[in-house]
């Protein structure tokens, strides 16, 4: 009896899918919004990178959601790992002088490159997420390569993480009172196209995201290393 009901339900669903697929026109472009982004994005947001103009210009509310998801993931990991007792140090092999010196030498350039990526997010490819991930990978190199007990500064990480989120939300709330009065509207002057100080609030938001993502991802790595 149950199998017969299941088969009937499947037939009904299949019929629905087939009829609705027949209604859809294939091969014709209906994405008017994509054309709008490509043609008007440059003058409406002032960002030279169209991906950035979509991510932080038109769809900045979605970006706020993404940042929140990453934040919740970091919090969840911290809450789970805080309940596990810390193991005493295992006898690990000390890294050779060449490896640890190389890591210490490479750490500042990688950090600088990450900062470059998110500061120039509105001009060149990349942005807050990519820059933050590169900064976190610099910390990974430090943790894996250098044997010395080097840890990230706890308060510095917490401050940059919360300040990043706060700046993002506060800029969005200021947008509610000035200009066109919607959340995260671009109320600052656009400036000269394709220069560093242009595109209004987009560079500020990307710098905030870069700090936040970098602090969160390196905190995740720090928590995992601490438990192992």
């Amino acid at each position, binding site marked *: 009896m149950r199998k017969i009901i299941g088969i009937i339900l499947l037939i009904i669903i299949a019929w629905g899918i087939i009829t609705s697929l027949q209604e859809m026109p294939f091969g014709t472009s209906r994405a008017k919004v994509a054309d709008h982004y490509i043609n008007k994005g440059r003058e409406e947001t002032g960002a030279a990178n169209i991906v950035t103009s979509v991510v932080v210009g038109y769809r900045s509310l979605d970006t706020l959601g993404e940042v929140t998801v990453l934040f919740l993931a970091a919090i969840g990991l911290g809450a789970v790992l805080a309940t596990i007792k810390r193991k005493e140090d295992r006898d690990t092999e000390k890294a050779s002088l060449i490896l640890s010196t190389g890591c210490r030498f490479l750490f500042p350039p990688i950090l600088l490159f990450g900062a470059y990526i998110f500061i120039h997010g509105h001009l060149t490819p*990349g942005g807050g997420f990519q820059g933050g*991930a*590169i900064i*976190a*990978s610099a910390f*990974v190199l430090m943790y*894996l390569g250098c044997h010395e007990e080097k840890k990230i500064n706890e308060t510095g990480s917490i401050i940059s993480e919360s300040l990043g989120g706060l700046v993002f939300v506060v800029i969005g709330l200021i947008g509610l009172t000035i200009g066109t009065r919607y959340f995260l509207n671009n109320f600052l002057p656009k400036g000269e196209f394709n220069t560093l100080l242009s595109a209004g609030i987009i560079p500020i938001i990307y710098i905030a995201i870069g700090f936040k993502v970098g602090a969160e991802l390196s905190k995740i*790595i720090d928590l995992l*290393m601490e438990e*192992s």
Partner: protein
Amino acid sequence: MILIVSFLVVAMLAAAVSAYFFKDLLSAVIASCMVSLLAAVLFFFLHAPDVAMAEASIGAALVTAVFVIAIRRTKRYEE
């Protein structure tokens, strides 16, 4: 152009298959890191530098680090 892309795809497939067959889990993680790195280069050739950057930094660096930490906590060789 098509030669470079096809070479990248073949190398990616080889790395993915070898990641499945390795008994040493550390080698398998490095092979999957290779897949991410080649995918990043492929994204760059497909004119998506933003995605390539995210793939290279997250897929190749951070995920590999997390797996290496997990292997350090568990066993290195598959039975």
